[in-house]
């Protein structure tokens, strides 16, 4: 089984991604596949300050509850409100319409702590 791993994102070992251009954060194609049918997403509030590695929300599938951890520190500038009605978007489009939150990155240097697409691929 092969999973989509876009080249322009950074990744965590706990299967989140961050887009350095937009500040958007989500879970990877591998993560959504492991979880199965996602039925509920709990997200932080806009304005929350979160630190790299903190859990910022919860993604629940029918079979599992999973905390999600922020790849980088920053202030939450937006959350994906569409997931309230359609949490399955995380399954269908984990790097697109299934994004979770957007951050104003506190320190771009933190990106160096993350995995490149090649490095992430090698963990799967």
């Amino acid at each position: 089984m092969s999973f989509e791993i876009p080249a322009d994102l950074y990744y965590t070992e706990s299967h989140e991604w961050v887009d350095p251009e937009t500040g958007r954060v989500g879970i990877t194609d591998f993560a959504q596949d492991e979880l199965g049918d996602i039925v509920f997403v709990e997200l932080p509030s806009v304005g929350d300050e979160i630190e790299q590695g903190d859990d910022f929300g919860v993604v629940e599938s029918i079979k599992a509850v999973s905390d999600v951890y922020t790849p980088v520190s920053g202030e939450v500038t937006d959350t994906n409100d569409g997931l309230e009605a359609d949490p399955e978007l995380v399954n269908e489009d984990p790097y697109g319409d299934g994004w979770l939150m957007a951050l104003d990155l506190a320190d771009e240097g933190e990106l160096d702590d993350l995995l490149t697409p090649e490095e992430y691929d090698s963990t799967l």
Partner: protein
Amino acid sequence: MPVEFDSIREEHAAVRSAAGIFDVSHMGEIEVTGPDGTALMQQLTSNDVERLDPGEAQYSTITNEDGVILDDTVVYRVPSDLPEGTPGAGADYLFIPNAGHDAEMHERWTAHRESAGLDADVENRTEDYGIVAVQGPEAVDLVADAAGEAVRDITRFTAEPATIEDTPCWVARTGYTGEDGYEILFPVEGAEAVWGAFDCQPCGLGARDTLRLEMGYLLSGQDFNSEENPRTPFEAGVDFVVALDTEFVGRDALAAQHEAGPEQLFVGFVLEERGVPRHGYDITDGDGETIGEVTSGTMSPSMGDPIGLGYVDAAHADDGETVHVTIRDEPKQATITAPPFLEGYQ
């Protein structure tokens, strides 16, 4: 049996709208035979096996001296004329303990036989037999195609022998989904042939759980557990499996509880706020006092609403009562709702 073959949601929808097949060979099979077979079954199960005619099945529980459910089961009274090789052939009773309980039940049956001085053979056939469940509105047509038209006449909670792909099967009109369908026992050598005889959605444990949850059916080990969450049949809401006019292990404790009324009762609820109830979450009243515990929960694939099962103090168990389920420290409002949660099911 995997948790899912494709997606729990797709498998669940297939069973509700068409048909699905489940490999439930992890369930146990124990055969009981001999002059005191009926006495042995009667003394170790809470329901009245003497109500069974050959070919009939009965839902029952196995209780300890305190009336606590050790396991729930289906008991078959086996006809004497089953074709050779059919599961149950030659035995008087066949019962189905849950996965992982077969050795414990075999031990319980043989120990009781010895202490009560009964004359009966008890054989654990779990390794010898497999079971598939074919469930859904199209299940009757599928099983009739595979096993012959006669299976259409098998009534609810009865079973008949039939042949599928040259394999001698015991075909029961039972299930765990709320849909019409069959559970089919066969000698394990026939497993591939029987599984392959049905062209419908293969389903895993995930869909099995969401389907039974929508109906409010108990899951052994999760909705009752003799060690972690000991419950009696009266607490678990399966009063109909307790025949107090028979003598069985646990009968006196259950008679006393029946008289006094259980302190807690098994209920269904629908969460009115966003979230998913899960096993172990607290249930509280309007003042934040703990009044019970969630034992099972999910996002209902059919309804799109979060539903759950659990135990609450009897005073809060009435239909329509408002309670709260604590999800990650937040109380979420829920309404007590007697299952089945789906309309048009019994």
